[in-house]
């Protein structure tokens, strides 16, 4: 179709001069020692999926256990290890890496028109550090697990817990380190490796989002790294930093932890925003409404995100005045998110919407993230937070934003770019079904948890036999989780199937815009046959004439 119009140095029409990145060497060595960002991305996809599967198994155990007020199969001690494992894996090993290190790694250099990231060896190192982190994690889990909760609050983690805190902390430390390396690479690449003509405002919004994320990672992650090291020191040498018994201050840990971890939630959601921008524009076949606003709102979120960590500490005995300040800034940081949501909605207006499977995931994202974000407002509202904090309301809030927001977007992005990554088409109808089942299952799982939370069900509770009135919602939630497992498990099957008998995807199966669709699927090792020269604006669709064409085609079809 006509949308291959973005001017490039002319890579598109030529026949395969160089082999695709998948063909370029088949030995294990050629994968494990590769410097190619695309191969590293594939390695990341495999590892991240693996961690997601394990984290989900833990989630399954949690849900199973909570169907009965007095538990079903686990001891309290085990339960605590299970939810901690779930939290740590899902946050540090799945979601922080999920979008940037997989889709970002693959797409970002192509989107800016570069041959590779600026530091390919650093990129590979980042994957190895990630694997090393995984190994530490497994030592921790096989050695009996950790029971501190993913927040590692002191003094419990530093002096009281008899579990593998040290290993788990090292795991988180290394995982953070690996994300720093990726971030560093992204920043340099975005600044310095853009193709000729690729100005800042021609960058796809995904790149903006990945860039903003990288800034957060660079400023935040070192802080958590050193904080976790201090916990280890306190455990090992009884260095009195966070535990009052020795003269330290436990709230200081919480400050340092959330100084990273609040920005970290934006590390998880910003790339998702980026993916959604791509999906909405390309499947509405229309330029994004208010490109600049969306681009800058990413930066605004990254910046403001560093000023709100204290909203996790409203009842932790931090100073009341500080609480007030954090509360008001939390509301300010909601504004850029609001801009994004509404701008995307306006993008669909007068587009030519294609309801293919990636778009279905994106639509799911809208509903779920909006609810998740708005319930975040209950929590940054100090009056209601005093009742809701640390209840299932919070569990529901963050699953809505993390699973309903980030994971949905990740899956949407994976569907969107799957043909590019593998060169194969998957079954689009199954993709739509999977998105619908997930959406339904998700709401059934987590909406009841809002009510549970307001009823007062505390999080991290193994038993609630003293409050049997909670059970009905727990049962609903577990039922929902089975649908959720179905919905999220399905892609594993049709994606795998597509590898074997999927139809070959052309360079641009979705008719989308962007440099990544200008090259072959899968792309050659250096991404383009020749460095592209970008002459056109980003998302350069023409909805009006496209609509004309569609209408005419329809009429012609009707005439016959």
């Amino acid at each position, binding site marked *: 179709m006509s949308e291959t119009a973005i001017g490039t140095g002319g890579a598109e029409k030529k026949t395969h001069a160089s082999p695709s990145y998948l063909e370029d060497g088949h030995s294990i060595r050629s994968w494990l020692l590769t410097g190619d960002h695309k191969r590293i991305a594939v390695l990341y996809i495999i590892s991240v999926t693996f961690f997601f599967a394990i984290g989900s198994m833990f989630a399954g155990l949690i849900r199973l256990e909570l169907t009965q007020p007095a538990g079903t199969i686990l001891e309290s001690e085990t339960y605590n290890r299970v939810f901690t494992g779930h939290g740590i894996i899902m946050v540090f090993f799945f979601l922080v890496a999920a979008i940037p290190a997989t889709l970002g790694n693959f797409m970002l250099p192509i989107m800016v028109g570069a041959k590779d990231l600026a530091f390919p060896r650093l990129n590979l190192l980042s994957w190895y550090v990630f694997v090393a982190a995984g190994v530490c994690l497994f030592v921790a889990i096989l050695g009996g697990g950790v029971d501190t909760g993913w927040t590692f609050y002191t003094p419990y983690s530093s002096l009281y817990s008899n579990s593998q805190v040290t290993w788990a902390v090292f795991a988180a430390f290394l995982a953070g380190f690996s994300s720093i390396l990726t971030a560093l690479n992204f920043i340099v690449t975005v600044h310095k490796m853009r193709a000729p003509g690729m100005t800042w405002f021609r960058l796809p919004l995904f790149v903006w989002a990945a860039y903003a994320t990288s800034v957060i990672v660079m400023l935040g992650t070192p802080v958590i790294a050193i904080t976790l090291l201090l916990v280890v020191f306190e455990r090992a040498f009884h260095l009195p930093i966070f535990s*009052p018994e020795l003269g330290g201050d*436990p709230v200081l840990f919480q400050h340092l932890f959330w100084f990273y971890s609040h920005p970290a939630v934006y590390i998880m959601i910003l790339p998702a925003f980026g993916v959604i921008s791509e999906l909405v524009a390309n499947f509405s076949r229309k330029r994004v409404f208010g490109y600049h606003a969306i681009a800058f709102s990413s930066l605004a979120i990254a910046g403001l995100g560093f000023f709100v960590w204290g909203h996790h500490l409203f009842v932790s005995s931090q100073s009341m005045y500080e609480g007030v300040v954090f509360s008001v800034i939390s509301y300010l940081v909601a504004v850029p998110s609001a801009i994004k949501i509404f701008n995307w909605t306006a993008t669909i*207006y*007068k587009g030519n919407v294609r309801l293919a499977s990636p778009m279905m995931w994106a639509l799911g994202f809208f509903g779920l993230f909006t609810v998740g974000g*708005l319930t975040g407002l209950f929590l940054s509202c100090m009056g209601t937070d005093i*009742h809701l904090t*640390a*209840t299932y309301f919070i569990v529901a809030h963050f699953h809505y934003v993390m699973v309903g927001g980030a994971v949905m977007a990740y899956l949407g992005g994976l569907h969107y770019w799957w043909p590019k990554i593998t060169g194969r088409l998957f079954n689009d109808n199954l993709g739509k079904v999977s998105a619908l089942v997930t959406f339904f299952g998700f709401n059934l799982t987590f909406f009841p948890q809002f009510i549970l939370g307001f009823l007062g069900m505390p999080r991290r509770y193994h038993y609630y036999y003293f409050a049997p009135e909670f059970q*009905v919602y727990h049962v609903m939630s577990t039922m929902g989780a089975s649908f959720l497992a179905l919905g999220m498990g399905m892609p594993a099957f049709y994606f795998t199937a597509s590898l074997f008998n999927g139809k070959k995807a052309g360079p641009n199966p979705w008719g989308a815009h962007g440099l990544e669709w200008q090259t072959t699927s899968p792309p050659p090792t250096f991404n383009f046959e020749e460095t592209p020269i970008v002459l056109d604006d980003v998302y350069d669709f023409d909805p009006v004439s496209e609509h004309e064409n569609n209408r005419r085609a329809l009429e012609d079809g009707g005439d016959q």
Partner: protein
Amino acid sequence: MNFTNFPIAPPSASTFAPQIDGLYYFLWIFTAIFTLIVGFFVVFFSIHYKEGSPADRSRPLYEHIGLELTWSVIPGILGLVFFYLGARLFIHMRTPPKDAKEIFVVGKQWMWHIQHPNGVRENNTLHVPIDTPIKLTMISQDVIHAFFVPAFRTQMMVVPGRYTDLWFTPTKIGEYHLFCNMYCGTQHSEMGGTVVVMPQADYSEWLKNNGMAVANLTMEQRGAKIFSSIGCDKCHTAEDTIHGPTLNGLYGSKRIFTDGSSAMANDEYIRESILKPHSRLTKGYGETMPEYANDLTEEQVLLLNTFIRTQGAIPAGTAGTTSNLTGAEIPSSGAKTNKNTAMSVNADQHGATPSTATPTIQKGKLSVGATAANEKNQ
């Protein structure tokens, strides 16, 4: 199990409750509005402007400062409104009135110690008078806990090395959940109990009697109370656990000790095991149990002994299935037990007349678990 009852709010039993509920529902209204707006437009546009649909696409919109300002300013202002309402309420909730009655709370893994100014102490239960501002001054002995009473809509972390406080004014008589709401280790979920709101007169009488309502209890029942109040039941449950052996069927049975010797469990042995548990350790256990030699009066030991004896009276077979030591109590009112699905624990039967509590009621409470378990077995 009750799957027909879908409670959506906890009982509202403090002056904060209506305010928080108001704010909460207010926020839900806006959540619903915005979700519906976004949901509606997204779905409507996707269908209306589906590729090939006849809808009009002329003059598409790419940039509109006015619109963008609208939807940043409106959420911004709304946010500030939410902030103001929340912060005002929060400051109110965090500023105890001068005349509040002070009660002291110490949290430790996994128990709440509560002390009233006149010295009356209780564990895992807090008795408070109605319509009186109460201020809890709290500290933790080990890790961070949080004192959370959903019915009062308030909570505060209990931090080691530093006092925190929490205040509320109860407005409704009854018994309410007390939860530890900050993860604190293995038995975090079981670190809780009950807050009992009583009429003021009853409360002062309760205080005067040293928190006593025990006049009519039998010795076993009083023993049972001590048994649970000092936490014996945490480790000595219906079956052997890693923490301690069961005491069901103990009395009169033969005990084997770590050094291989053995003895008959008689009164003397039980007394010794309470006061100096480490002198003869049951096979398979370490020195986990604290020594009570300096802590219990002889009277208390005697009461405990009479209670533990009754456990021995249960044939070992049923002991396992009745699943709790208090199974010794006569199951009194199965009907009442089922009411526990209501929001507050036994709110209907107990709180109204705590100081004159009759033995039946006490029995009813003590036997709750047993009756439930019995019903399950039948």
